[in-house]
């Protein structure tokens, strides 16, 4: 009997499909490929339109800090905007990560399905997080500018008075509005929903057996979180935070409303004035002549490239970590 196995080879199964199925597959495949095409076109067309700007500045586009696109000697560069974006994102993540992780854990581990027998806390929180993701950034920006900012200056003043010896908390202007810190807080709030919902999803994939095994050994919830939930979720959490970072780097309108553009590179997060790529594009659109537009598109290209890399890496991490758990 075993001799025959060596001689028998699988037949080739003809996978002939009907014309309509081939059309259907073609359509779906076209849509799938379309995403590649769009991504490619974004890069291509931004590059084409950015050529005048790169021509004018060459590599100095990446090292210049000013933004002078008109006149006989235009000098402009993306460096200060880029550092500004990074500073805002770091502050944003510092705000968003603890709150998001805590919320995700609360929803997954702590929230009772119903409080007092009828308030569906868990579902309510989940829905609220989703709603926060849908709230327009213009509203976050307005709220940050008109409501949060007046309540923040006190803290900023205090920090610069008592902790001013730390360079980042120094403020030379004495003005505390329109600062990186406020932008960062708002951007952080805006990143919370995505980080929360992704982390929640990752946490919920923790194998039940291990969780309950630990619990039945008398582990407290804190222990279960530390020893079971976190180790399993590590990759996914890192990925979600990176996706949050991508969001933070790209936020335009909220930052544009709050910040007052200032072009010197500035690490003083409490001080008025700052810069960010996305906000720069939003604020300077339509001014600065055709070279100005080209320069903004070049800045957009830089932003696109950075977020693309971050998101690619992040989504790989997230997908991989979820794939093993499923």
């Amino acid at each position, binding site marked *: 009997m075993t001799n025959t196995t060596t001689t028998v080879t699988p037949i080739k199964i003809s996978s002939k499909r009907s014309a309509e199925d081939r059309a259907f597959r073609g359509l779906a495949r076209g849509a799938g490929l379309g995403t590649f095409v769009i991504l490619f076109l974004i890069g291509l067309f931004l590059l084409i339109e950015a050529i005048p700007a790169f021509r004018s500045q060459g590599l100095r586009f990446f090292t210049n800090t000013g933004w002078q696109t008109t006149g006989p000697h235009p000098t402009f560069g993306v460096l200060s905007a880029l550092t500004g974006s990074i500073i805002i994102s770091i502050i944003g993540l510092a705000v968003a990560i603890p709150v998001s992780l805590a*919320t995700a854990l609360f929803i997954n581990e702590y929230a009772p399905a119903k409080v007092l027998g009828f308030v569906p806390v868990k579902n309510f*929180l989940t*829905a609220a997080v989703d*709603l926060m993701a849908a*709230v327009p950034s213009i509203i976050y920006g307005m*709220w940050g500018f008109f409501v949060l900012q007046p309540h923040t200056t006190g803290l900023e003043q205090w920090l610069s008075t008592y902790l001013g010896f730390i360079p980042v908390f120094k403020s030379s202007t004495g003005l505390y509005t329109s600062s990186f810190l406020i932008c960062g807080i708002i951007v952080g709030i805006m990143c919370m929903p995505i980080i929360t919902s992704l982390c929640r999803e990752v946490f*919920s994939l923790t194998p039940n057996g291990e969780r309950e095994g630990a619990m039945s050994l008398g582990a407290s919830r804190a222990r279960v979180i530390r020893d079971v939930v976190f180790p399993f979720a590590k990759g996914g959490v890192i990925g979600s935070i990176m996706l949050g970072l991508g969001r933070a780097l790209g936020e335009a309108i909220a930052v544009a409303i709050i910040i007052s553009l200032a072009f010197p590179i500035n690490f003083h997060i409490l001080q008025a004035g700052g810069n960010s790529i996305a906000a720069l594009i939003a604020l300077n659109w*339509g001014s600065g002549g055709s070279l100005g537009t080209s320069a903004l*598109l070049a800045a957009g290209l830089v932003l696109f490239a950075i977020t693309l890399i971050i998101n690619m890496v992040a989504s790989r991490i997230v997908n991989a970590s979820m794939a093993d758990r499923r």
Partner: protein
Amino acid sequence: MTSVSPPAKIAIKKIRPREFKPSDIGILALSVASSFSIVWILFFQLTLLSGALGFVVMWIPIFLFMYWLVNRQLFTRQVAIDRLIGSIVTLGALLMMLPLVLLAIFVFERGLPLLSWHVLTHTQQGVVYTPGSHDIGGVAHALVGTIEQVIIAAVLGIPAAVLTAIFINEVGGNFTKSVRVVVTAMSGTPAIVAGVFIYSIWVTRFGYSGFAGALALAIILLPTVTRGTEEVLKVVHNDLREASMALAAPEWRTVWSVVLPTARSGLVTSVLLGVAVSIGETAPLIMTIFGNQVMNTNPFSGPQMALSLLAYKQIKVPLQSQIDLGYTAALILFILVFTVFILARLLAGGAGKGKGSKRKALMARLRPTPGVAMEVMDDEADLPETEYEIEREQVSNAAQPRKGNDDE
């Protein structure tokens, strides 16, 4: 293993609430009060901190420390840490909700006073932004613009998104994974990049128009809806696809008549969520629709306005009445988004469907391998037929319980 764990889970869960006794509530209240007073004295009286944010920022760590300390003194270290983590987590969730609540209060408080029929039916045509001018105009042109742009974006983006999700989940192929990664990456591409892209590919040739804005919105909508749709398609039971195939259905039929209808409610939800997000986008509209003052109902030619862009522009006008109009535009925007969002939730057919704890069970069923599916089947407790089977066989005087075969 599964035969032991469930009772343990129930036992642990039931005990939890009782672990937190009334006296513990006292401890909690005490910690809150004392930390409150410490912050009040130390920071607000002695070092002159002011502002709500400062207060919250100072209060939280001090409260957590106090709470930990008290529990540490009264109970064991484990209890103290467990409670500390518990309160951090709960506080985090509260902090998360805080902005949402404050935002909602903010838009209603500031936007409601000006909301009127007049504002909804008038445009900014002929409005002069000088102090003392009585006519503040309205938002009608922006409302029309938003609606048109979002509808066009939906018409363009949703079919593409659903097809892409179908490609990833139903058709498959060599580059399914890469498409999924690209879609995720696209969903993280900043909205303003979509705007400058459409500017460079479309506006430079055809000029500003509502349609250009819709193109940008479609790009933003596409990945969101694709991912949502993919998730709901995954939840459709694979048995149904096989049943359909066994009935000789062509692939497109299986998708169109079986998979999509089965996933309908989830599908509608993910589509509406995508639409809700795109309604509020502002940044990409700056360089695509440009914005104007007058009614332009034709999305295919000339600048248009949108609610979000109007709000953005009005709050920059140094005139309180115009800033107020911006608030009103934001309120209308918020109401629109909220309505679509609630609609999405309601149509989801029961909150949390296909998510959360059920998800894993669902995921387990999705595997296309019959062998695995049957294994899962055997584990499932909701099928007590084996017992019946045995009973029946005893009745019919047979000594062949089918369980015996499975045990091998």
